[in-house]
Structure formats: structure tokens, C-alpha cells
């Protein structure tokens, strides 16, 4: 694509047409290959999009669900929920939620070592996503603790735990595929 520059004269045009690409005198691959191996650890996750997408979807669902739920609770309760920083581990879970929480812990444990293989941006993205999910779980757990008979609160906590488990499974699958 050319612009408003004056036209190329025929001699130069012909000379340019006759230009040919030529390879290097020696094969450079022998020097390049060792540099590649040093730069990217084998098994590192490069499929960032699936993991990011999964986490993003989970966050969107959790956020939407949480917003919807929090909009519907009593104002006094809402304040209590949003200001809490109750860790998940201190909440008494139902049997189903305990199973989910146990599966989450197991996966988190196994991913702890695998996560070190990931490149920094992917690791940071996943950590941020999990942080958001953890906060949603903490809020849901606090709400449930303050209103044990609230079925909606219980369902919300269960769903949020499931979503975190789903994200961890996705990351785990991708990690296994790369190793």
C-alpha cells in the first residue's frame, strides 16, 4: 500500500522487483534452540484464555448472583454482610457444602505446586479470580451464619462454592494437559 509519495521511477521499481530473500550463511537454529529451552519451563500454561474465561464467567455469575441476592436482603443485614471479612474456614458448613469445601481444599493443595510453573501474568490472573470468588464465598458464608434458616443464603453459598470448584478444576485440567 502506497500513499501520496511521488511514484517510484521505473529503474528503482524494477530493481526492487528483482530483490530476493537469502538465508543466513550458517544455520542459526543451533544457537536459537538452547535459548528457547531456557526461557519457557516445560509444562507452563500457555492457554490463558480458557482459564481466564472460566474464571471470568464464574466471577460474572457470582457477582451477578451476589448482587441480586444482596439487593434483596434487609438493609441491616446487607450492612452486616458487606462489612464482614469472616474467613470461610470458620463457618459451619452443611454436609453438601463441607464436601465441596473439602474438594476445593484438595484441589488448592495440588495446584499450589503446579501454579509455580505458570507464567506470572497467568498466575496473577488466576489468583485475582480466586480472590474474588473467595470474597463472594466469605460474604455468602457470613450471611448464612447470620440467618441459618435462610434457604436463599444457603443456596447462594453452595453455588458459589461450586463455581470455585469449577474454576479450580478447569485450571487443574489445563495444567495436566500441559505437563
Amino acid at each position, binding site marked *: 500500500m502506497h500513499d501520496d*509519495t511521488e511514484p517510484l521511477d521505473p*529503474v*528503482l521499481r524494477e530493481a*526492487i522487483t528483482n530483490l530476493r530473500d537469502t538465508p543466513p550463511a550458517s544455520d*542459526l537454529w543451533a544457537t536459537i*534452540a538452547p*535459548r528457547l529451552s531456557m526461557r519457557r519451563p516445560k509444562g507452563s500454561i500457555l492457554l490463558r484464555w480458557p482459564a481466564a474465561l472460566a474464571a471470568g464467567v464464574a466471577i460474572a455469575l457470582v457477582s451477578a448472583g451476589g448482587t441480586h441476592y444482596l439487593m434483596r436482603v434487609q438493609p441491616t443485614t446487607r450492612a452486616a454482610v458487606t462489612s464482614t471479612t469472616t474467613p470461610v474456614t470458620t463457618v459451619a458448613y452443611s454436609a453438601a457444602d463441607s464436601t465441596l469445601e473439602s474438594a476445593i481444599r484438595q484441589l488448592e493443595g495440588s495446584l499450589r505446586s503446579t501454579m509455580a510453573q505458570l507464567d506470572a501474568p497467568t498466575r496473577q490472573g488466576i489468583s485475582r479470580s480466586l480472590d474474588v470468588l473467595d470474597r463472594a464465598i466469605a460474604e455468602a458464608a457470613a450471611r448464612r451464619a447470620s440467618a441459618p434458616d435462610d434457604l436463599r443464603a444457603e443456596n447462594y453459598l453452595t453455588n458459589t462454592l461450586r463455581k470455585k470448584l469449577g474454576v479450580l478444576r478447569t485450571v487443574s485440567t489445563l495444567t495436566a494437559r500441559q505437563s
Partner: protein
Amino acid sequence: MTLTTPLVGVPTIDRETLDARHAAGGDEAAFERLYRRHVARIHTLTRRMAGPDKADEITQDVFVRAWDKLPTFRAESAFGTWLYRLAVNVVLSRRRSERSERAALLDDDSALEYQTAKHAPAGMRLDLEHAMAKLPEGARQIFILHDVEGWTHEEIAEQLGLVPGTSKSQLSRARAALRSMLDAR
């Protein structure tokens, strides 16, 4: 059952894009195939833009950089186009680190006047490769990017941190110098 006819409407992926995806996943054999396919073009570009002494080293850097950046390749353009852009960036960023753009252009102005005025000795025939190599670096890069590679002045100006007018005037002088050298036969 063996399919004997191509599936209509099924998106296909070319071999090169497939290699790029595999290479992004750490497959060095796939990356070597990409290297073999493109090394001549990349080496020619680096040799023309940065000179034969630095061409090998810069070509290696280009492929190592490509390996690092492959996960960001989204196949929105052909792999070759993406790689070529990357190579231009590597050459130019290297040049920027070696000397300031302004100093280079000042040097180019005086050198171009010299090249335009001074004809090669009679009987000495220069082909375009050799003539380009005699241009000052900045003017040579603008000529290559514009007339050989088809970039616009706006694209060149953006890459080099110039205004388009400077790119145009440098190109005009580079052409005159080249024509002068090619004519001196």
C-alpha cells in the same frame, strides 16, 4: 469411513497457524518448522536494515522474542506478517538503544547529500542490495519499509517516532541517492 471430499462450511486451519499454536504450547519442533519457513525472509530484512554484521545476531533475537510472544499471537493475521512486524520492532528498538533517533537523522541528512552528489566510479555497477547498504541507516530503513515492504509514511513515522513529513523527505533523498548509484555504471 474415509472422507474423500472436503467438508463444506467447516472452518479450516492452515498448517502454519497450527504450528504457531503448537509452538505457543511449548512445541519446539513446530517452532523449528516456522523458523525454517521464515528465516530467509527475516534474515534478509535484518541484513538490509541493520547491516550484514548484525544480521545473524538480530535474527536470533527475533526468533527468541517470537517464542516468548507466541502466546499472544491470535492468528488475526498470517503468522509471517506477525513475525515480520516483530522483526521490524526488534531492529528498530535495537537501533533506538544504540543511538538517539535525532542524532541518526542528522547524520543521515549530511550523508545523504554526500551520497547524492558523489557518483560511483564509472564502470562500477551496483545492484540495489549493495546500493541500499551504502545508504545511511535511517534513510535505508525508511526506503526498505516504504518502497520494499509497502508501509505507509504514517506507519513508518509511528514506528520511528518521526512526523510523516520527515519520513517522506528522507525517502525522497534515499531514492535520489539510490538512483544516482544505480545510474553510475
